[in-house]
């Protein structure tokens, strides 16, 4: 609709600018939401003072604090690699948004291999973690980086396989096609997304995405009780904020939007009668649901051990996702879908 008025090129430019402008504020907002949700789950109030209303400016104040702090580079660190890290982690996190559709034409680039692209982009971040671990000249950083790399290899596969099953359902790797595929089944006016058919895939996606973002219970690479802050132990100030917090939250929003697109129908409305609400609102609502799930998981579970995590990935998740693909194949062959 908007594209018809403005033409595709302007939409793309607008989306690019919009995403770029919205990412950092979104990070701050999500950080605040996480603080508040976590606090209420733990019988606390969370931040109450900064900004007045329920401490809304807490993360903003944190951000300003990070900017004002001294940027320390350890003497033995590999300086160029060390200072490149925030760019790499942020790049990996931000690239995800390129293919997430907020409407049929409201997408920066509707790639034919969109699913593939998101998975590839989301794993760029770990290169940053490895660089940080290597360049810091610190044993804790090194161990954290190695853990992160091992974890990524273990969880990339179930993530890919879970996504592959969805691609099978839609018969396309393009995210727009996948959303359109979820508009096909309408039951009493309700659009039925892939979730009911891909419930195993969704659970695998949630677990693997949590591991990929190194959030609890899979946060061994930054396990503060063991490795202090893992690969980012030596980072301070703005570099720390960008390479750890901003990258984590941007990846989190990105992967949640990806998950919402894949399993919950993305910009598709819930009911045919609700078509008047713009797709972007639906996308944000569904993304928010997945974000809440991720936050809930984080504040509930203890952390696994590195070897248990590997066992879990290779012995449980990967076989399970293969079974899931098999089931999906069987579903595709049944005539009533």
């Amino acid at each position, binding site marked *: 609709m908007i594209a018809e008025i403005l033409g595709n090129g302007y939409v793309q430019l607008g989306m690019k600018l919009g995403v770029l402008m919205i990412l950092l504020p979104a990070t701050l907002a999500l950080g605040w939401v996480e603080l508040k949700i976590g606090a209420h789950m733990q019988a606390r109030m969370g931040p109450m003072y900064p900004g007045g209303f329920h401490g809304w400016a807490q993360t903003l104040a944190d951000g300003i604090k990070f900017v004002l702090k001294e940027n320390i580079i350890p003497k033995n660190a590999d300086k160029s690699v060390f200072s490149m890290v925030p760019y790499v982690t942020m790049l990996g996190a931000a690239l995800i948004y390129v293919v997430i559709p907020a409407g049929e034409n409201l997408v920066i680039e509707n790639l034919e291999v969109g699913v593939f692209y998101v998975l590839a982009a989301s794993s760029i971040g770990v290169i940053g973690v490895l660089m940080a671990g290597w360049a810091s000249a610190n044993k804790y950083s090194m161990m954290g980086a190695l853990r992160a790399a091992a974890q990524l290899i273990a969880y990339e596969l179930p993530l890919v396989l879970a996504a592959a099953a969805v691609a099978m359902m839609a018969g396309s790797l393009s995210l727009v096609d996948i959303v359109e595929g979820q508009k096909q089944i309408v039951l009493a006016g309700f659009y039925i997304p892939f979730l009911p058919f891909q419930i195993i895939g969704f659970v695998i996606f949630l677990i693997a995405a949590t591991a990929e973002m190194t959030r609890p219970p899979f946060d061994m690479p930054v*396990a503060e009780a063991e490795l202090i802050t893992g690969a980012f132990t030596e980072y301070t100030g703005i570099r720390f904020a960008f390479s750890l917090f901003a990258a984590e939250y941007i990846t989190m929003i990105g992967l949640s939007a990806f998950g919402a697109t894949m399993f919950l129908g993305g910009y598709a409305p819930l009911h045919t009668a609700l078509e008047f609400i713009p797709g972007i609102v639906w996308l944000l609502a569904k993304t928010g649901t997945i974000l809440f799930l991720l936050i809930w998981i984080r504040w509930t579970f*203890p952390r696994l051990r590195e070897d248990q995590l590997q066992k879990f990935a290779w012995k449980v998740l990967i076989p399970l996702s293969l079974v899931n693909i098999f089931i999906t194949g069987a579903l595709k062959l049944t005539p009533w879908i």
Partner: protein
Amino acid sequence: MSSLIPTTDRWLSEARLSGDGTLRTEEMVLNIGPQHPATHGVLRVVVTLDGEKIVEAKPVIGYMHRGHEKLFEQRDFRQITNLCSRMDWLSGINNEIPASLAVERLMEIEVPRRATFLRVIMAEINRILNHLMFTGSFGLELGATTPVMYAFRERELLQSAMEMATGGRLHFGFIRPGGLKEDVPRGFVDLALRGIRQLQRAIPDYEDLLIGNEIFKARTVGVGLLDPDLAVEYGVSGPILRASGVPYDVRKAEPYLNYNEFDFNIPVGLHGDSFDRYWVLIQEMKESAKIVEQALMGLPSGSHIGQVPKRLTVPKGAIWAKAENPLGELGYYIVSDGDSRPYRMKARTPSFSNISVVPHMLRGAYVPDMVAVLGSMFFVVGDIDR
């Protein structure tokens, strides 16, 4: 850029190869602490690592050595109880009790029944406060952030009851040779009872939150096994010893105060792993709550302090007095030369012995296990170093 990425030749020439041409891995020495989140306090552990596996672990202590034993010799017998409460800062009352017991036995002071009851009540509330702290922080060490917040919620009421009576929240300084500093204020009994009731309601939550959690079990069951014979040889005591299956509790073995009048059990673990240690801690809170309830119900009226001379001159002699600190057996060996200050006062603190056995438990474990082991050894650095 080229200098950043070594060529294969350079890499091979620099890599250390063992005799048969395979790559030899090197052990890495990692200094954990004294400033490290896992060692809550200033314990330092020097670990030799093979990958993530611990080959050897050596605790290095002394970063908080404050010379308590020298200071004891400078203070008179009324003042040493205040000093004692600063050794294990999580259980002040329990630290003060054996010190005044020793003085009372040497001077043959009669302690009124009300004071004895109040000592039991406060010691057990203090035990609960301590156990809540450690159950919470153990979860934190394993990456679960919620248990510690719940624990602090329950601590609050009991902590205010203690504050109401003693005026302090950490260093109570309330026990005196002969009794207590003063009687408890009106309302203390109600507040303490309310705190206990709230705790009893909340304990099932703790059990659901961690004991029933699969990840928690995976991290703790079979981790950090402590053999009962080894534990006894090292003088390990308290919940850690009992988790290994040895039912040694000073409150039962050599009842002091009037613990023999109360009905309570000694929870004992089966395997001596981190899970059992955590489980014992939770069970002990229930038992302590039972004792506090009974003592509050049966609290007699009377004086809070016995007949104590103005100047405490302790007759010549030596004595060994011990009590069950929340972390284990705490005792004082006091030598008096007939003065108002101890000639020599040795503090036998539980954490010291408990930590000395840690190298045996860490051999062959993974780095994350180290956190599970240290977290379940329930130590206070001030109690190790004195």
